[in-house]
């Protein structure tokens, strides 16, 4: 794919991924066929900031985990009052990373 397009994609979407994953994504994108560009540019990613807000407000109910697609862990958090409140607090710091990794999982379907 055109390096210009790749840079544009990375600039627009850098906040959705971990910084150490960016190099790998860039390499993959450069080697990717041009026909995938249309698909790639319309993927919706989950915003880590949004999940952080949800985690702070409704983390004890597990809504943040439900939102990023970890339904099983969400049920666990819901049933245990956010893991007696401890898991809820741990997730305030973990949820952004978890969201970025979910995004990585999503884009990987298109990269290979």
């Amino acid at each position: 794919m055109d390096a210009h397009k790749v840079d544009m994609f990375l600039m627009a979407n850098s906040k959705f991924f971990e910084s150490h994953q960016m190099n790998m994504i860039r390499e993959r994108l450069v080697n990717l066929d041009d026909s995938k560009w249309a698909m790639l540019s319309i993927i919706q990613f989950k915003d880590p900031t949004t999940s952080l807000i949800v985690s702070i407000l409704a983390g004890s109910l597990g809504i943040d985990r439900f939102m990023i697609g970890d339904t099983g862990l969400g049920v666990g958090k819901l049933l245990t009052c956010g893991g007696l409140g401890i898991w809820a607090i741990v997730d305030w710091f973990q949820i952004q990373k978890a969201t970025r990794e979910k995004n990585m999982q999503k884009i990987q379907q298109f990269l290979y």
Partner: protein
Amino acid sequence: MLLDRNKLYSILLIACLAGYIWLYYSITSNVTENNSVEVCLIKHTINIPCPSCGSTRSIISLTKGNFWEAFDLNPIGYIIAVIMLIAPVWVFVDIRLRNNSLFVCYQKIESRLKKPKYAIPLAFLVIMNWIWNITKGL
């Protein structure tokens, strides 16, 4: 944090262990008597019970054999009790046999729960339970 088999199993074991320690602590220190099992963040901040408030008391009544009282306190206690009884055994059997049946089962349940036909009724049940909790004033 992408879940793989070992991560899921360690989370489950830690959660069950914490659950048993918490249960032991609650039973021995008699916190049930004065209705103050106050670790819930929601109850602390906005002073209304969350959907699963009262499940500790519910499980304690279960251990004493008061099944109706347990249901009356919080039906979620039954679900937690079943998970706490089954999960550690299943995890240890899986580790012993080098199997991943629990992980496969977890993924199946998770993908099923994401479907609206299961998700909506269950969410409705949780909300009904929440309303019931608030009216009971747990």
